């Protein structure tokens, strides 16, 4: 697809993920459309259980066997061009050549992301040996080089140490090193700083920003922390109950949030500088269980702007409001009765 004017490297089309459980089949991700451009950082925001982690793992095809993904995930793979990742066998050779090489991932809890049985060096080097070179000496050089780049001091000594000899922050750096060693096009960061101290968090985020510039990769940043999103992301997609309910540039989301859920999320963030005693806003109610989803908008029961007779009957679709600000809400984008969306 080289030379196309849009530099999209990943495009999800109507991604659905089902999980088989004892009680039946849960549709946890209910149709996600998302694009990631070259060099862009996209934030995927939502509360626990909204399906953001499953979505990100679906890209690599590393979800549990109980999960089944439908739809399309097109990736601009090296050599083969736009490839639907979902059409590849999840245990096959093609997808494995993409994993770790062109798309890599870092995880929430660095403390358990490494096997305690092998040295950090061994585990980082494994990726190098798999994807770059079979030459052991050269591979070690490359791995050490990346370890230095992510700020692991005394890398030669650290290379031969075991995970339990590392601190949480250092392990996250090592995990990032492992993800970046093959210079991937896309880095998926699944809540990479949630388990870390605040000061370490800041360091890691700073590191990721610098590395993104150096390596020129795109990042899909998954988090529930809006503060991090504001700091890191160019584009933000807000997810609720397996759907993207609002998607816009970070500036737009913070300056002009449309969806009541986004507003709720922003209202519940404590802003420095606001005057004293104001209570944090909290969204009423809980997320409905995915097993018995109500008809209509998933946010209907908790929404302050709901329109009875519309929102509880029809499911709103993402609608572009202009400037690429898309929102799935009848109250913001107009009712279907009043005829179609403004754009498109």
């Amino acid at each position, binding site marked *: 697809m080289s030379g196309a004017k849009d530099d999209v490297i990943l495009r999800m089309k109507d991604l659905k993920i089902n999980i088989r459980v*004892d009680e039946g089949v849960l549709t946890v991700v209910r149709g996600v459309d998302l694009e990631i451009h070259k060099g862009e950082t996209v934030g995927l925001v939502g509360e626990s259980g909204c399906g953001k982690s499953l979505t990100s793992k679906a890209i690599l095809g590393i979800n549990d066997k109980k999960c089944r993904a439908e739809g399309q995930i097109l990736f601009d793979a090296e050599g083969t061009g736009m490839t639907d990742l979902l059409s590849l066998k999840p245990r096959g050779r093609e997808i494995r050549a993409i994993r770790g090489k062109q798309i890599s991932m870092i995880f929430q809890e660095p403390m358990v992301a490494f096997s305690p049985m092998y040295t950090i060096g061994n585990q980082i080097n494994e990726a190098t040996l798999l994807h770059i070179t079979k030459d052991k000496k050269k591979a070690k050089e490359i791995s050490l080089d990346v370890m230095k780049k992510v700020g692991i001091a005394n890398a030669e000594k650290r290379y031969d140490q075991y995970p339990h000899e590392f601190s949480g922050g250092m392990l996250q750096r090592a995990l990032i090193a492992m993800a970046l060693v093959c210079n991937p096009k896309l880095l998926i960061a699944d809540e990479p700083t949630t388990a870390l101290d605040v000061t370490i968090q800041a360091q890691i985020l700073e590191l990721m920003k610098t590395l993104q510039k150096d390596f020129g990769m795109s990042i899909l940043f998954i988090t*529930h922390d809006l503060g991090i999103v504001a700091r890191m992301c160019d584009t933000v997609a807000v997810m609720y109950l397996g759907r993207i309910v609002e998607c816009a540039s970070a500036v737009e989301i913070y300056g002009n949030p449309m969806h009541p859920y986004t507003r*709720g*999320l922003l209202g519940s963030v404590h802003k420095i500088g606001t005057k004293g005693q104001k209570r944090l806003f*909290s969204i009423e109610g809980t997320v409905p269980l995915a097993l018995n989803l109500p008809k209509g908008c998933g946010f209907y029961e908790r929404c302050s702007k709901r329109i009875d007779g519309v929102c509880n009957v029809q499911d709103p679709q993402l609608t572009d409001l202009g400037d690429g600000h898309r929102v799935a809400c009848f109250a913001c984008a107009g009712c279907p009765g009043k005829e179609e969306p403004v754009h498109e």
Partner: protein
Amino acid sequence: MALFKKKKATDESYYLASQWALMWRKLKKHKLARFSLSILAVLYVLSLFADFFAPYGLEEFSSVYKNTSPTRVYWRDEDGRLSRPYVYKLKKVNDRKTFTVIISEDTSQKYYVAFFVPGVEYKLLGFIPCSTHFYGLVNEDGVPDRSARLNIFGADSNGGCIYSRILFGGRVSLTIPFVAAAISFVLGILLGGLSGYFGGWVDNVIQRLIEVLSAIPSIPLWMALSAAIPPGIPVAAMYLYITIILSFIGWTGLARVVRGKFISLRNEDYVMAARLAGVSDFKIILKHMVPGFLSYLIVSLTLGIPGSILGETSMSYLGLGMKAPATSWGVLLKETEDLVSVAQCPWKMIPLIFVVITVLAFNFLGDGMRDAADPYK
């Protein structure tokens, strides 16, 4: 950070349900565990009311029926018409030519299978005098007749009904593991608790003891211990001895678990809080710590029961446990000691089926309980 309040009432009942209610709910969903539980219930009921369900008493032997195969039940009469099920009596015939005794069916008279017939007298549950048996034979006049026998699983070398003896044997084989488990349970909690709670030299001594006991292979140890049982003691005392011997090793595994749990719980805030509030050590252990892992203990107990069932069987089999006329499944299986008797009387292996089923049922139940013990998973 988003703060979400107010849970639905239905959700709340799930989160507020007691540990036991949750475990039970989970266990009921586990099909295999539920099935095992009902099998065990049937087995226990059968042996509790063994006097009633068994057609013959513990000491009712018939010399004619020695080593005979399961009694053949006829469904059709001589003309091939469907009939009320009946059997023939066995009789001894001396073959004058070969000087051998031949056992054959005496077809002169039919004995019909009937339910709720009077038989040998017994005391139901130990105190209700009764003589009705679940099934038995009646002659053509409808009068109960005990000269013919219906041994559905055949007869042993004394001419006892194997089916009846399995039910009576179940009283020993099914309860010994339980009593042994109860003793192991108390010992395990006590010694494991002391070890984990106090630490220091107490811990050291108990740990060495466990190490020592678990280094000696169990059957040789059991053999040595049962060799020490004085011969000719009453059945009840024998029962007690065997139980104690079986629980001799059982507690060590449990004590290890308890110790581990105590060590991890000892540093929990709520235990510290209780200690600071001046609650006695004993009360802390019993009220605050044990309930926290009781479900795990019960699970490991259930999984430990099969071991003692097999232990009792092996010991009786070697002639070191219960001895006739008292019976247990091991005693019954002793008849299969050599290949010849198995080859001649394969039905003597039937008690083995009961052993295997019981052990399997306890294993599956334990597995189900282990899954259920972690209800939020």
